C-alpha cells in the first residue's frame, strides 16, 4: 500500500509539472537582444598594475566632432542649402565613417588580409623594411615614408597572400598575421561588438569598484533589464542626441587570452596606424563618406578620435618615457572639477616640472573607484564633452604661449642688435651706480637689474644651472621646429643660440660688478617683479608676479624701446614688443622658458605620428609600473635606497639670488648614477639622439655631479636670505661663519633656521630627485629598470600595508548576471560568488548549458520561460515567445525551433 502511495505521489507531481510548470523568468522589462559584451574584469590595485602589461579586448572609441561640425557648417553655408540640417547629417556620416572604417580594418586584420605591424620595432622578429622605417621616423615629425609603406600593404591585401607579402617586407604568417588558433571560437573570428554608449552605468561596474559583491550584481542585473537606457546600436543615430561628441564601446569577442597577450599590442598598434592612414587615403572611405570624402580627408583625425582601453588593460605597452607620461596626463582632464583646480596643475605652470610630477605627487593613487568621475555626469556624452572641452582649453593656452613666444623671439632676433643691448645694460649698471641717493627710479632700476641677473644666472650658468639642461632638451627637440614650420623663418636652434649670446652678455655684465656693494644691505628686493616662472621655482610659488606694474612704472619715465608700428597710434601696451634692453632680454628668456614649458607636455596635445592616441585613462598604474614607482610584487622584492652624502665642494655664485651647485658624492656603490646607467646601456634612448648628446645633456643638467644633482643656495644678506630653494627630498644644510664652514646636517628638513647672529652665510644642499625624473623622462623611448624615485619608494613602502597590493581579479559575464537576475528576481550572495568566477548561477546544469548554447548559436532574445524535462525540454524566447525544443543531454545538437 505504501509503495503504491509513493508511486502515485511521484507520478502525480511529475504530471503536474509537465502540464503547467513552465518556469517563468519575468524580472525586469522584456527586451529582445542578447547582451553582446565582453566579460567584465574586476581587479584590485596590484592586479590592475599587472594588467597594464596586457592588451585590452575592449575599448571606448571617443569622437570629438566639434571642429568637424564647425567645418561642416561653414562648408554647407558656402555651398548653400539648409546648413544646420546638412551639418547634422554630415556629423552622422562622419561618425558612421569612423565606425565602418574601424570595422573594416578589424575585419581585414582578423581575416589575415592585413599584417600586424609590430608595436615594438626593436624586436628581432620585426620585418626589416618596417624596422628601418621606424628607426628613421622621429616621433615628433610626420613620417611620409610610413604612409607609402602602409599604402603598399593596403593595396596588396587582396592579392595572393603568400606571393605578395614577401615583395613588401619579410612578414611571417606565424608572427605577423592573426591565425585561427588565436581565437577560442573561430566562427566569431572577424566579429566585433559595437555599442553607442549613452551612459556609464553598472554595465561598466569594473570602472567603479574592485571585488564585486551582491549589491553590484543586483545593480548590474537591474541595468541589464533596461539595457536600452545605457547602450544603443552604433548606427542608430536617433539615439545620438549630442552632436558634439560620441562615445562607443567596441569589444573583440572570443580571443584566446594566451595568444592575444602576444599579439594584442601589435593588433592595437596596427589598428591605430592603419586607421590614421586609411581615413586619409583608403579608397573604401568613399563608400561610407560619399560626397564628403574629400572634406573628411582634410580633418586632423588624431585631434578628433581617441581609443581608450576599457579597464586596466592597455592598448600600448606602457613605457617609462616622456611621451607615455605626457599622454597619461590626459587623465587629469576627465575630472569634473578640472576647471576649478586647473591653475594648480603642473601643465599650466610657467615652468612645469613635467609629466613625471603626477607620479611623484601620488605614488599610490586610487584605481577602479571611478577615478575619472564617470558617475558625476548625466550621460557618457556629457562626460566626454567635459573631457574634450578641458583638453581644448588647455591646448589653446599652450598654443597661445607658443605663438607669442615665437613671435617675440622672431621679431627680437631680427631687430635687436646685441652690441646695442650690451651697451644699454652696461649703461644701466653705470647709471644706477652713479646715483648716491636712492631715488624712486634708481630703486626701480636696481631691482630690474637684480631680476635680470637672477633670472639669467638661474637659467644660464655654464656648469651649474639645473634648467640649462632642460632648455638644452628644448633645443634638441624637433617639436617646436615641426609645429612652427612655415610660421617663422628660423628654427629653434637659432633662437636658442640667440638667447645664449644674450645670456653670455648678461652673465658677463652681472659678474663684472661688485655685487655686494651694488646690492648692499640697504637694498630692498621687491620679489614680485620677477617673472612667475622664477618665483615658482625659487620662492615655491608663494607670490604672484606683478611685472606688468613695473612696465607701467617704466613707461612713466621712458618710451618703450621696440613697438609695433600701430603703437604710435593706439598707445596700447599690447602693441609694445619690449620696453627696454632689460625687459627685452628678460622677455627673450621668458619666451625660451615658455617654449620649454609647452614642450614638456608635447604628447598630451600634439600628434605627429599619424597614429590615433590611446591613453590608459582607467589605469594610473600603467606608467607607475613601467617607471617602477609602483611595483605590484613590491612586498617580495622591495629594495630601498639608502643615502649618505657629504658636501665635498662648494662654489660661490656670482649673483646672490641664483642657485649654485656643489658636488656631493654618494657613498660608493650605494646608488647607480645616471651617467653610469648610460654608459652601461641601461638607459635606452631615442635612436635619433646620440649617446654622447645624452651624456652631455645629463652633464649639463647635473653639473659636475656623478648622477645626483645637489643644489646649494647661498645667502649672504639678511634681507634676501629666506627661501631660496625649497626642493623636496633630503637636505643637507651647511652654514658658515665668514672664515670657515661648519656643516650642519639636517636630514629631511625643508626649512632651515640658521642662527643669523653667528652665521653670515648658509649653504643648503638638496638632492633633487624631481629634476632627475623630469630630465630623464625625456629620453625616449625607455628608461631603464632603476628610476630614481626615492621619495616615492619610501612613501610607497608605507602605503603598501594593505590588502590591495596582493594581485586579485574577478570576471563576470553580463548575460549570466541578467539570466540570474531575471530568473530569481534578486541575486544572492552565493550566486555572486559564482558570477564573479565567470560562472553561471542558474543552479541547474541544463539551464546553464542552454544559456551557453543560445549565446553560441547567436539566438537572439531572452528566455521568457523554460520547461526542463530531460529529452523533452522547451524554452520560450522574447520578444515573440518563439518556442525551441531541446534535449538536456545534447543541447547544441538538438536545439531547434518548434514549428
Amino acid at each position, binding site marked *: 500500500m505504501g509503495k503504491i502511495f509513493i508511486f502515485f505521489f511521484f507520478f502525480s507531481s511529475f504530471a503536474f509539472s509537465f502540464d503547467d510548470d513552465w518556469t517563468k523568468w519575468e524580472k525586469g522589462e522584456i527586451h529582445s537582444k542578447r547582451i553582446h559584451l565582453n566579460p567584465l574584469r574586476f581587479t584590485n590595485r596590484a592586479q590592475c598594475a599587472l594588467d597594464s602589461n596586457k592588451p585590452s579586448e575592449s575599448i571606448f572609441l571617443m569622437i570629438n566632432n566639434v571642429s568637424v561640425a564647425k567645418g561642416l557648417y561653414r562648408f554647407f553655408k558656402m*555651398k548653400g542649402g539648409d546648413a544646420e540640417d546638412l551639418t547634422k547629417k554630415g556629423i552622422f556620416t562622419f561618425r558612421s565613417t569612423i565606425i565602418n572604417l574601424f570595422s573594416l580594418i578589424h575585419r581585414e586584420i582578423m581575416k589575415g588580409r592585413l599584417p600586424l605591424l609590430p608595436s615594438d620595432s626593436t624586436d628581432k622578429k620585426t620585418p626589416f623594411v618596417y624596422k628601418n622605417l621606424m628607426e628613421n621616423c622621429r616621433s615628433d615629425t610626420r613620417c611620409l615614408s610610413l604612409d607609402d609603406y602602409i599604402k603598399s600593404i593596403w593595396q596588396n591585401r587582396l592579392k595572393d597572400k603568400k606571393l605578395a607579402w614577401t615583395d613588401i617586407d619579410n612578414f611571417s604568417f606565424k608572427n605577423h598575421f592573426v591565425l585561427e588558433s588565436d581565437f577560442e571560437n573561430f566562427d566569431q573570428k572577424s566579429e566585433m561588438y559595437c555599442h553607442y554608449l549613452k551612459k556609464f552605468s553598472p554595465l561598466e561596474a569594473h570602472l567603479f569598484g574592485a571585488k564585486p559583491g551582491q549589491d553590484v550584481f543586483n545593480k548590474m542585473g537591474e541595468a541589464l533589464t533596461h539595457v536600452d537606457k545605457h547602450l544603443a546600436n552604433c548606427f542608430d543615430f536617433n539615439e545620438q542626441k549630442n552632436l558634439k561628441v560620441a562615445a562607443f564601446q567596441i569589444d573583440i569577442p572570443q580571443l584566446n587570452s594566451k595568444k592575444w597577450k602576444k599579439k594584442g599590442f601589435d593588433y592595437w598598434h596596427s589598428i591605430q596606424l592603419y586607421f590614421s592612414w586609411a581615413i586619409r587615403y583608403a579608397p573604401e572611405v568613399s563608400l561610407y563618406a560619399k560626397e564628403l570624402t574629400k*572634406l573628411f580627408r582634410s580633418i586632423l583625425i588624431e585631434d578628433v578620435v581617441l581609443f581608450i582601453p576599457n579597464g586596466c588593460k592597455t592598448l600600448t605597452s606602457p613605457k617609462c618615457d616622456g611621451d607615455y607620461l605626457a599622454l597619461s596626463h590626459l587623465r587629469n582632464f576627465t575630472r569634473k572639477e578640472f576647471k576649478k583646480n586647473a591653475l594648480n596643475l603642473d601643465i599650466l605652470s610657467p615652468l612645469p616640472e613635467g609629466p613625471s610630477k603626477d607620479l611623484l605627487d601620488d605614488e599610490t593613487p586610487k584605481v577602479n573607484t571611478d577615478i575619472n568621475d564617470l558617475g558625476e555626469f548625466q550621460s557618457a556624452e556629457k562626460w566626454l564633452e567635459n573631457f574634450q572641452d578641458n583638453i581644448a582649453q588647455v591646448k589653446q593656452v599652450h598654443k597661445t604661449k607658443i605663438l607669442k613666444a615665437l613671435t617675440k623671439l622672431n621679431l627680437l632676433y631680427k631687430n635687436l642688435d646685441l652690441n646695442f643691448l650690451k651697451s644699454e645694460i652696461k649703461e644701466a649698471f653705470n647709471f644706477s651706480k652713479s646715483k648716491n641717493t636712492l631715488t624712486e627710479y634708481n630703486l626701480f632700476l636696481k631691482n630690474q637689474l637684480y631680476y635680470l641677473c637672477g633670472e639669467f644666472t638661474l637659467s644660464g650658468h655654464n656648469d651649474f644651472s639645473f634648467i640649462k639642461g632642460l632648455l638644452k632638451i628644448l633645443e634638441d627637440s624637433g617639436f617646436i621646429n615641426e609645429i612652427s614650420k612655415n610660421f617663422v623663418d628660423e628654427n629653434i636652434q637659432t633662437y636658442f643660440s640667440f638667447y645664449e649670446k644674450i645670456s653670455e652678455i648678461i652673465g658677463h655684465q652681472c659678474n663684472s660688478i661688485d655685487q655686494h656693494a651694488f646690492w648692499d644691505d640697504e637694498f630692498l628686493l621687491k620679489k614680485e617683479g620677477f617673472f612667475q616662472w622664477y618665483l615658482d621655482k625659487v620662492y615655491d610659488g608663494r607670490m604672484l608676479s606683478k611685472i606688468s606694474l613695473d612696465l607701467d612704472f617704466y613707461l612713466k619715465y621712458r618710451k618703450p624701446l*621696440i613697438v609695433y608700428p600701430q603703437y604710435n597710434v593706439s598707445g596700447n601696451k599690447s602693441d609694445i614688443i619690449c620696453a627696454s634692453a632689460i625687459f627685452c632680454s628678460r622677455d627673450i628668456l621668458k619666451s625660451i622658458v615658455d617654449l620649454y614649458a609647452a614642450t614638456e607636455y608635447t604628447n598630451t596635445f600634439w600628434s605627429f605620428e599619424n597614429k590615433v592616441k590611446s591613453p590608459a585613462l582607467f589605469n594610473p598604474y600603467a606608467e607607475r609600473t613601467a617607471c617602477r614607482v609602483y611595483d605590484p610584487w613590491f612586498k617580495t622584492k622591495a629594495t630601498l635606497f639608502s643615502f649618505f652624502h657629504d658636501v665635498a665642494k662648494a662654489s660661490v655664485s656670482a649673483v646672490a639670488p641664483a642657485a649654485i651647485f656643489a658636488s656631493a658624492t654618494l657613498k660608493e656603490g650605494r646608488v647607480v648614477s645616471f651617467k653610469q646607467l648610460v654608459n652601461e646601456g641601461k638607459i635606452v634612448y631615442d635612436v635619433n639622439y646620440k649617446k654622447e648628446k645624452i651624456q652631455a645633456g645629463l652633464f649639463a643638467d647635473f653639473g659636475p655631479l656623478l648622477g645626483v644633482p645637489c643644489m646649494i643656495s647661498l645667502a649672504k644678506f639678511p634681507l634676501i636670505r629666506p627661501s631660496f630653494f625649497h626642493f623636496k627630498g633630503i637636505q643637507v644644510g651647511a652654514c658658515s661663519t665668514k672664515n670657515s664652514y661648519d656643516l650642519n646636517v639636517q636630514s629631511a628638513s625643508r626649512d632651515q633656521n640658521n642662527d643669523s647672529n653667528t652665521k653670515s652665510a648658509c649653504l643648503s644642499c638638496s638632492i633633487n630627485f624631481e629634476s632627475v625624473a623630469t630630465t630623464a623622462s625625456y629620453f625616449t623611448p625607455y628608461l631603464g629598470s632603476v628610476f630614481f624615485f626615492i621619495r616615492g619608494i619610501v612613501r610607497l613602502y608605507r602605503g603598501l600595508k594593505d590588502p590591495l597590493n596582493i594581485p586579485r581579479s574577478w570576471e563576470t559575464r553580463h548575460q549570466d548576471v541578467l539570466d540570474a537576475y531575471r530568473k530569481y528576481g534578486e541575486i544572492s550572495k552565493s550566486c555572486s560568488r559564482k558570477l564573479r568566477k565567470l560562472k553561471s548561477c542558474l543552479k541547474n546544469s541544463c539551464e546553464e548549458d542552454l544559456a551557453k548554447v543560445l549565446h553560441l548559436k547567436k539566438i537572439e532574445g531572452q528566455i521568457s520561460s523554460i520547461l526542463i524535462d530531460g529529452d523533452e525540454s522547451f524554452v520560450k524566447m522574447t520578444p515573440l515567445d518563439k518556442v525551441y525544443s531541446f534535449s538536456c543531454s545534447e543541447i547544441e545538437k538538438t536545439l531547434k525551433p518548434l514549428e
Partner: protein
Amino acid sequence: MISLKIFLLFFAQIFSTFAWDLDFEISENYLQELKISCSDRDSEFCYQSCDDEFFCSIEVPFCQNCLGNSFLMTAIFSEIGRFYKSSEELLELSDVASLLREKKFIILTSHIFYNIFDSTDFNSTTEKFQSLCREDEFREYTLVFWEYDSLELGDGLFVFCKGQFFKIEKSYDVILNL
C-alpha cells in the same frame, strides 16, 4: 626703368580691375572650385590658367590636416593681417596664372571651413582678412591663396583684391625708439 614698371603696373591695374572676375564656391559635387571669367581683353589670363580663353573652373585641393586644431592654422587665422601682410607688390597676371595652373595652393577666407577658431555666428577674422586689401578694394570674403604642396601647407602666396593680386609676406616691421 623702375618708373616704367610702376607705370605698366598702374596701367595693368586700371584695365584688369574691370576686365575679369574671380569667384570661389563649393560645387554641387562638393568640390571647391575657383571660377575665372575673362573678357576678350584678358583672355590670355584665362588661357594661361586653364587653356580656355573665357572661363576657367579650377578645382582647389582640400588641404590634409587643415581642418583641425593645428598650430599653423591657428597662427594663420590669428596673425593674418598683422604678421601675414599684403605687400605693395602687385603680381603679374602671368605669374598668378602659372601658380593656378600648378594647383599647388589652397584658398583661405574668413569663412572657409578650415576656420574653426571663430564661432559660426560672429567672425572676428573677417576684418583681419579684409585688412589685406585697401578699403575700396576688399570684397566681403577676401580670398587668400596659400601654398600647398606635397600635402603640406607652405607660405602665403597672394591675396585677391578687386581685380588685383598682391603678394603675401611675413612682416617684421617694428619701430625702434633708440
